[in-house]
């Protein structure tokens, strides 16, 4: 398997040129309020979220800042209750932030946009549409010609290996196949960023490993920027160039960890184990 991800070396920005210096510590000391026009990837800039309810206001996220460079694969991990899902929804434009901003390729995210391909944990395929209709759903709203749309659907189905199931309805697919369709559907509109919320959380361990390998292949062949939310540390170390580790109460960035392990990564590689231990410690050690 050729696993040389284009992202690591070919990204439009070297990793060290990212808007956020990696050794700067979790909270931004540098001033990043001015949007740089040449920005690629996604920038999460001092995002906070406060829920006002009947009781005292709850601070779900506080001053969350990090960046995902173009073509980079970043995982977001953290203990339950650290606001991962809230942050995911804010980045996707499905929930408003109380403060701060999210920028995608330099443009502030003010609502859902087709520049982002979003994949949810529970697949959420449209059950009344066939596999190919699901994949083509977003394309119908683009200005592509019909021939172009068909070609794109074919390409996506080939990418996730589901060409022969194109006329099936989701009810007849396994969990792993449904998630492949969801990924193909998200990628079909050629988004800047693939944003995934625990996408492999609902499938069995074996399927999960297969999907992880496939996702890395897709990433390598498309060069997409990926932001992948997970609670599974080993999964994050398997996939990511960098791991944004979050802490809870309030949800904030604890640290950003570089994963300097060659791909394909094997779980019995000592370096792999060290990274897993380090991230686990960060999650556990922070109050």
């Amino acid at each position: 398997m050729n696993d040389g991800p284009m992202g690591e070396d070919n990204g439009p920005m070297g990793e060290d040129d990212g808007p956020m210096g990696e050794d700067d510590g979790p909270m931004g000391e540098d001033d990043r309020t001015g949007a740089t026009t040449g920005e690629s990837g996604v920038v999460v800039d001092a995002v906070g979220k406060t829920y006002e309810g009947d009781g005292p206001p709850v601070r779900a996220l506080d001053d969350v800042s990090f960046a995902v460079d173009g073509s980079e694969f970043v995982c977001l991990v953290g203990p339950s209750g650290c606001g991962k899902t809230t942050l995911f929804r804010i980045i996707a434009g499905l929930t408003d932030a109380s403060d701060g901003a999210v920028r995608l390729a330099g443009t502030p995210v003010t609502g859902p946009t087709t520049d982002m391909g979003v994949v949810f944990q529970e697949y959420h395929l449209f059950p009344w549409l066939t596999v190919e209709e699901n994949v083509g759903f977003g394309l119908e709203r683009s200005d592509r010609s019909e021939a172009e749309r068909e070609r794109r659907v074919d390409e996506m189905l080939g990418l996730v290996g589901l060409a022969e199931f194109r006329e099936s309805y989701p009810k007849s697919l396994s969990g792993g196949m449904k998630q492949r369709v969801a990924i193909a559907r998200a990628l079909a509109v050629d988004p800047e960023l693939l944003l995934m919320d625990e996408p492999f959380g609902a499938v069995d361990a074996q399927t999960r490993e297969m999907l992880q390998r496939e996702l890395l292949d897709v990433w390598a062949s498309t060069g997409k920027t990926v932001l992948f939310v997970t609670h599974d540390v080993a999964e994050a170390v398997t996939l990511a160039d960098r791991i944004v580790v979050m802490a809870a109460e309030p949800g904030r960035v604890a640290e950003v960890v570089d994963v300097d392990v060659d791909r394909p990564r094997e779980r019995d590689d000592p370096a792999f184990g060290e990274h897993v231990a380090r991230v686990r410690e960060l999650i556990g050690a922070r109050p």
Partner: protein
Amino acid sequence: MATDTGGRFDGDELRTGLGLDDPRRLARGAAGIVGFVAVWHLVSLTQPAYVLPSPAAVGGSFAEELSSGTMTTALWSSVRHWVPGTIVGTGLGVAAGVAFSWSGLLDDVTAPLVRTLRPVPPLALIGFAIAWFGINDAGAAFIIAVGAFWINFYASYGAVEGVSEDLLDVGRTLGVGGDLDMVRSIVLPASLPGILTGVRTGLGRCWMLVVASEIFGVPGVGREILRASNNLLVDTVIAYILVLSLMYLLVDVAFRAVQRRVLVWRA
């Protein structure tokens, strides 16, 4: 709508609809009917005909009404009430249910009105039917439409309420813009199973309402039932009830076949 409704109906679907594909089930059903008629026959021997006529007497009346042409005329007349009443009531009910359920504004504006009008039985509107339409087919269709409206309104309203917020989120991230696009591409197909259940319930209810809708003198099956009741011709009453049952059965089987076809994607 992207649902595959193309293709032809084949015999298999019709047989499944009628329950003809399972011989054992069919045999049991037949046994049930035979048993019922037998008990009916035995009980009718102990009662005068104006209390409970025998199955044979009902059969005789049925044949008589049919051969004299009274039954076909009455049925044709009722069909002319049922078809437009059901179509208009169903269409408006589904449209209003979907719109009021989807739009918070419409819902707020109409909720008190809906709660006020909901308990009014279609029969209580006969005065309006006569005043607005007259003692004619349109008046009878109006009564049926009111009944169909409420069933479909509530079924559609509930079905739209039940559409998963997650599917709407997926739609938003895939570029679905605006209420019209959202309703057309996601809300309607997602709520279609619930809407069709309402339509099916309404189809049956409307055959029941045929009797009520003809109470003020419009000819039809309902009128025949009321006329025969007034003359204590119970065998004729039952013969016409059988007509309504058969019509309901026919429509229901056909609708279920359509439903199965339209919802082929369902698990």
